[in-house]
């Protein structure tokens, strides 16, 4: 279980913010790729992330195509 509580030192808390932002970006890259490899469509991934289709496509399509992932049209 993840129990987020404030560290004693604000330097650790602020560094955690930076590390969590990086982690969220990397997790998005990994999970979008996993979903697309599993045959999800762009609208489904967009819906699950709560962003527009255009946004998720613009951000991830090129790298997935370059990696040879078979993408569903719809």
């Amino acid at each position, binding site marked *: 279980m993840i129990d987020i509580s404030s*560290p004693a030192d604000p330097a650790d808390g602020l560094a*955690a913010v930076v590390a969590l932002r*990086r*982690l969220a970006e990397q997790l998005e*890259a*990994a999970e979008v790729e996993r979903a697309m490899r599993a045959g999800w469509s762009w609208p489904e991934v967009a819906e699950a992330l709560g962003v527009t289709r255009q946004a998720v496509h613009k951000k991830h399509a*090129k790298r997935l195509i370059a990696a040879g992932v078979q993408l569903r049209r719809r």
Partner: protein
Amino acid sequence: MFERFTQSARAAVTDAEHVAREMGAMTVEAEHLLLAVTGTDTRTARVLHAAGLDEEGLREALIAETTRSLAAVGVSVDALHFSPYVKSPKLGHSAKLVLERALKIALARGDKHIGAEHLTLAALQPSVGTVPRALECAGVDRVSVITALSA
């Protein structure tokens, strides 16, 4: 703004983009510039290596810093695997600050060119943030490195 940069400083900026992309970063940050400098053939790189900051050492320190920062809020994570982005990442705020500070340092010292040394001094200037924390994780004294570089 790069016209006053030495060849090795330019190479470091370009290499920092590759380093950032390969590490899965969305933007080039100060730590990527510093990592790129460790791979240049310069006196600065040799001073960094002597302090324990060769490329491998700094990479390990950055991973340790991330692990420690996430642990501070109770998060632990295994390495995530994903295909890299195609486009080179843009310069993030901390990297832009390094370039600005490197220029100021060069001007203050009356140096005509901005080299690996100025980039490194600029990256090591702040006492808070990812770079100083990574150095702390590696047991490297930031101020001693700055002194060794300025000597």
